[in-house]
């Protein structure tokens, strides 16, 4: 998923930059221009996202199982689907789990991503190239391919991971069942997701640090600041918009992570590693209860909106200030 090299850094530009929207000539035509320019994007969004979303909303009030699908029947359930979901303890457990899972992964990704990004800045030219290429390779590996390889690496009998642990002297791990418990399954999933996401953060962060004026660092060093101090007083404040934007994206991407979790153990054991998207898919598409699935998916968006509300508000407020 994560592929927007420098994009996040780029996005921060208008906020760090001085200019807000421009002093434009305000003719009649000019007033219509922005709408005209946005028309294709808005139209496409309305047709190819808005329409399915409305359809999804309608479905969430229906019972649509295999029978209704095949026979083209419409069976209204009112808010029955929602009642059933919100009334089940499973939904709330899954929601809580999703939030914790997303939080943990995003923290790990941002933390290690930042460290690797700073490391890149500190390396010599050759070593930097080596590490960058390694990061790019991991980043470019298609999700389906990556999940397949990780399944294989963590295989209990033929996996390289267990073999290495065994050789290192941890013999009880020789046939360890990584997907046998909730925690160990989440461990594998987390390793996979963090491995896939770090390159994006690290490379972007490195690219962003190169834009920080050298004078700022020199001034800080002259004041006798140590490494940590330089980071907190120069790097972090300068790149704050970058951190915010990247965290926002990572929250969305980790929250929505689907093939990774599904391929590792289909949300098992005992559905204990299901996150909201997996839960919605298993209930809706897997068990052919499409109405239920639609309802869950809409609740899922609500949860994601709540999780990102801070950033959304902040961004909109800045937009307002800029105007």
């Amino acid at each position: 998923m994560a592929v927007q090299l420098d994009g996040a850094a780029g996005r921060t530009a208008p906020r760090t930059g001085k200019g807000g929207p421009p002093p434009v000539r305000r003719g009649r035509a000019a007033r219509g221009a922005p709408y005209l320019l946005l028309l294709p994007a808005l139209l496409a969004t309305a047709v190819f996202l808005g329409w399915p979303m409305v359809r999804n909303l309608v479905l969430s009030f229906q019972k649509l199982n295999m029978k209704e699908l095949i026979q083209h029947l419409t069976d209204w359930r009112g808010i029955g689907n929602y009642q059933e979901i919100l009334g089940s303890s499973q939904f709330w457990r899954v929601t809580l789990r999703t939030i914790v899972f997303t939080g943990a992964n995003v923290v790990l990704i941002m933390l290690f991503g930042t460290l690797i990004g700073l490391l890149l800045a500190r390396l010599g030219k050759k070593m930097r190239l080596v590490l960058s290429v390694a990061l790019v390779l991991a980043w470019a590996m298609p999700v389906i391919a990556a999940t397949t390889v990780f399944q294989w690496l963590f295989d209990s009998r033929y996996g390289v991971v267990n073999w290495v642990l065994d050789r290192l002297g941890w013999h009880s791990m020789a046939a360890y069942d990584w997907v046998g418990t909730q925690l160990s399954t989440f461990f594998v999933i987390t390793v996979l997701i963090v491995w896939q996401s770090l390159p994006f953060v690290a490379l972007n962060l490195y690219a962003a640090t190169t834009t920080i004026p050298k004078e700022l660092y020199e001034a800080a060093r002259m004041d006798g600041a140590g490494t940590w101090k330089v980071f907190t007083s120069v790097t972090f404040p300068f790149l704050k918009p970058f951190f915010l934007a990247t965290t926002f994206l990572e929250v969305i991407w980790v929250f929505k992570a689907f093939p990774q979790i599904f391929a590792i153990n289909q949300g098992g054991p005992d559905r204990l590693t299901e996150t909201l998207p997996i839960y919605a898919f298993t209930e809706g598409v897997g068990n052919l209860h499409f109405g239920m699935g639609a309802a869950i998916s809409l609740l899922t968006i609500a949860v994601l909106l709540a999780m990102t509300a801070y950033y959304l508000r902040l961004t909109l407020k800045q937009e307002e200030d800029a105007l």
Partner: protein
Amino acid sequence: MKRGLIAATAVAGMLMGVAACGSGGGKSADGFKGHKLTVWVMDGSNPAQWTKQVSEQFEKKTGATVEFKVQQWNGIQQKLSTALSEDTPPDVVEIGNTQTAAYAKAGALADLGDLKKEIGADWSDAFNKAATVDGKQYALPWYAGNRVVMYNKKIWAQAGITSLPTTRAELFKAFDTIKSKTDAEPLYLPGQNWYFFDGLTIGTGADLVKQAGGKWVSNLGDPKVAKAMDVYKQYQAFSTAPKNKDEATPQQSEIFAKGKTGAIIAMGYEAAEAIKANPKIKDDIGFFTIPGETAAKPEGVFLGGSNFAVAGMGKNQELAKEFLKVALSKDNDAQMVREAGWTPKSPALAGAAKENPAAAAAAPAAAKSGGTTPLIPQWAAVENVPNPIKSYMTAVLGGKAPADAAKDIESEINARLAKQ
């Protein structure tokens, strides 16, 4: 009745009989000329020679052509259920025998009662049961197979075992001998070979579901299920295979192919896969029926296989029925047994089974102790990924008491059974 008679002649006359059937079947041969019939079969289901001869015979008989569209397993449920809702669904579809009830209840399949009477009078009930719902025939059994013990003759000879076991006790004794006398793993059995376990529950006479208050609920806490699981555990103790994997990850045939495994509980076709992975293993492979507690009754087996069904919204239903007459004729059924090692579904096919050792080993158990999963439409949902019964198996093998393990997943099973 006339058509039935002609079908009977077809049994005797094999190939020629089919041609005769075409001209006498009521519809004129050119009635379907230029039509094309679409048949969905699953990846790996239709053997090459069978496909060839069915296509030829069908074309000859009806003048229409048939196109086999091979479907991948991944996401098949979504594909099939959406396809059956379309204006031009596939005309004939292969459906897993335990999935048939769900599709029939959803109104997706045409009634094939007359056709069954015409061509399937001598099919065994164990095969046909899974093609009927509430007494109505919604599909016709195409093929089914059951597991056998696939063993490595070389290793067994090394261990000095001369006669094949006919009871479970003898089998376990043989495994012990292999363990002590050779460096091979006596049996490779991962913890989640769920269909082998299902066979064991058939063997102990357990029911996986029961009716309570007009609803189907889990019966996994039943002592008979626990007893079957105990047998499984005894088997699994001979293996170092992972307790949390099924026989497909990694493919057990490829492990067997390495020549370090005494036996696997396998379907007949897995021998071909082993040979593909290691051609040298070919002459070492042998099969025998999974022995039961006594020599008289083999171990219970799950009769897994597929039915052919006709899409209820299909535009070519008459032609589809003509296709089924060809595809399920005696000689084509015999070809499935010979070519793919499937279990014979009628006594008339016993001859064909003799030509395939896997089918020969499978036949006694299928006839005497064959069964399926519960044949209720809701059952399909229970087996959906992630299958809770697999979790149950892993938990018990990991040391949990069967009753506790059952309790852990019963609510999940009940929830799946409750959804219509």
